[in-house]
């Protein structure tokens, strides 16, 4: 028995030496991800799988913007290194990817927490590790009633976008007692739009003739469109994802439904026009960023110039590229404001004290406060044009008159 004990003890010694060699000595005073000449920023987004077409532009935008900053000499002489991690759009996987970014890559801040379900799943980890982070999508469920301490975003919730569309119908088009129909995707995203619709109906005493919904991933919405057609509304308001917008526009053309259709910013993709053809001419969206064809907007011109320099092959920046680029802009400004002695707490309070941040026309001005990490920014109604393949703004920038946040 003694012989065996000896073997075990010797083995344990080996184990101890092996593990001991793994431990790196890190001085406690250092801020993770910040050195004299470098700041490490992470991004989390789906880089593989079916939603990669959204996730790759999110990561690219952050990389491109900080490459631009590095060419200008960095921030206080520090170059910014961007490390992108794939979350596969699966919640437990995303938490693993974020932990890898924090522990292995030692990121200082995170420029994208990916889509809404992923942001919700990583929020406890972000809070515990105190990583200032940007979320690409303004999601009501995450930022209301109390925002997570370290996560920031910008833009109107879907409820606000729906209200903006309705207010356009009421006050700009001056429609008299319009008959409205509402059609939404039955999940958290669509429910948020419905919340705005109900609030507007109550406030403005509107005449609703049809309310329809479809389940996420449904491949046929013709019966709902038929119901809407039978109800004979004057306007159709949507909270849809782009693929279903295309389905709806094609179905509407088939059934001869020619009323104006109003959707939210997330479904304002050039692809919708490309695939639907002239069926898209009745399609409107509430949009809170500048459009990719507005090259006269200084912010957009710079964005396109910077992007073309790095990706000469692709000309039109995708929607999520623009959204994420603005996030990188905000994060860069926050790091600048936080000063030379950078810490995560300083960055968080710098972001919280950001007032009327000007994105040079990419979005309306952005102001944060301690209780508002996702400020409503100005919107416009844009209309699809099947001849050019782009959207055209048909209103000025503005906010909703009915503000749900004040309640």
């Amino acid at each position, binding site marked *: 028995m003694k012989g*065996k004990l000896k073997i075990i003890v010797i083995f344990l010694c080996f184990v101890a030496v092996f593990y001991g060699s793994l431990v790196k000595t890190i001085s406690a005073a250092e801020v993770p991800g910040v050195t004299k000449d470098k700041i490490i920023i992470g991004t989390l987004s789906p880089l*593989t799988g079916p939603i990669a077409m959204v996730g790759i532009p999110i990561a690219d935008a952050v990389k491109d913007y900080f490459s631009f900053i590095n060419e200008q000499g960095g921030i206080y002489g520090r170059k910014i290194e961007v490390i992108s991690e794939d979350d596969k759009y699966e919640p437990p996987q995303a938490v*693993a990817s974020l932990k*890898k970014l*924090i522990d292995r890559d030692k990121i200082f801040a995170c420029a994208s927490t990916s889509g809404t*379900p992923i942001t919700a*799943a990583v929020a406890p980890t972000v809070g515990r590790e105190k990583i200032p982070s940007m979320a690409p999508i303004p999601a009501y469920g995450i930022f209301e009633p109390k925002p997570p301490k370290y996560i920031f975003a910008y833009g109107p919730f879907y409820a606000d976008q729906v209200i903006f569309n309705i207010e356009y119908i009421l006050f700009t088009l001056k429609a008299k007692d319009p008959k409205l129909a509402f059609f939404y995707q039955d*999940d*958290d995203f669509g429910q948020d739009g419905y919340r705005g619709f109900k609030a507007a109906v109550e406030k403005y005493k509107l005449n609703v003739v049809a309310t329809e919904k479809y389940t996420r991933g449904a491949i046929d919405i013709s019966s709902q469109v038929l119901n809407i057609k039978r109800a004979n509304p004057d306007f159709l308001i949507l909270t849809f994802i782009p693929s279903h917008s295309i389905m709806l526009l094609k179905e509407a053309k088939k059934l001869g439904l020619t009323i104006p259709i109003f959707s939210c910013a997330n479904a304002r993709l050039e692809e919708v026009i490309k695939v639907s053809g002239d069926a898209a001419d009745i399609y409107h969206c509430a949009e809170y960023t500048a459009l990719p064809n507005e090259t006269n907007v200084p912010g957009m011109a710079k964005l396109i110039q910077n992007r073309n320099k790095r990706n000469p092959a692709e000309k039109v920046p995708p929607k999520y590229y623009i959204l994420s680029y603005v996030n990188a802009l905000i994060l860069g400004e926050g790091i600048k404001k936080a000063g030379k002695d950078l810490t995560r707490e300083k960055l968080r309070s710098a972001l919280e004290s950001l007032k009327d941040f000007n994105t040079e026309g990419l979005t309306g001005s952005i102001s944060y406060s301690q209780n508002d990490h996702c400020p409503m920014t100005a919107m416009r109604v844009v209309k699809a044009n099947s001849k050019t393949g782009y959207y055209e703004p048909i209103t000025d920038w503005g906010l909703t008159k009915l503000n749900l946040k004040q309640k």
Partner: protein
Amino acid sequence: MRSGDFKTSYGEDMALLQTTFIKVCIGIFVISLIGFVLIADKYSIYIINLSAIATIGSLGINLLTGFTGQISIGHAGFLAIGAYSSAILTKSGFPFLVALPLAGLISTIAGLLVGIPSLKLRGLYLAITTFAFGFIVEHLANSWVSLTNGAQGMEVIPANIFGINFDTDKGFFFLVFPLAAFAIIFARNLVRSKPGRAWIAIRDRDIAAETIGIDLYWYKLSSFAVSSFYAGVAGGLIAHYIQYIGPTHFELLVSVQYLAMIIIGGLGSILGSIFGAVFMTILPEFLKLLPDLLRGSYPIVTEKFADINLILYGLIIMLFVIIEPKGLNGIWNNIKVYWRMWPYTH
């Protein structure tokens, strides 16, 4: 040199760990695992914890599919019921120590309900039934807003036992590791006792099993019950670890992953369940290392071929099914046999 295991008493033959060598190996494994967790970074511990949770879940599905031969493509449904039950119970004031077994029991009740048709249905038909069950649970999680907070998902309070919060990765390891160890020992004893033998008999030929006096009704249901209890506990642990759950956490893909775990690990094997769970949890992370290594020198590779992981992942699973249908457990056994006779192997 050892030429075989020879036993001189029934006690020795029935021992769980049969040789001193195995006892020492397992002891070293446990000690080095704990040692590693004490010094490793949170990311590594997170992966270890996920593996441990997956082990509990895959043991459950292996008891049902591997040992009893009842295919389940709706296991994510049991995980979801466990996760939501535990989350809701702790939210309404139950201590974690009560909520987790209760979550397992609630999942068991669901398992019994799904198990009832299994007495009439076999093979593909049962697979479709469990498949539908998975969808029903996902739909309920989405639509029963007052209970589950719908598609928005709900926050879960961290596990707390007698005032100790298990909200760090390291802390959680010391909660999940003993549970996983207990789950393994329990399952191992279960499959070599009466119920386990009955399950295997049912799997091999249910009519023959009935003729030798095995109560099909009771044993099929009990297999569903035990399996869903395991899944419920695994689901509860995931909920308290990630501290947030939503319907998207328990989609069809999760059921498929669990099925893949036991196929890769080895159907009808406890060790195989562990191998499969650990392998399937670590593999995607391991595959990430490849682009990471190339990032420095060949950034273009990682940018343009991000999907390379996905291809490798699929390829490895396919190769397993084709080359080694007995799974990792089969490979392990081959290695053992090889070394037992070394250097006189044929």
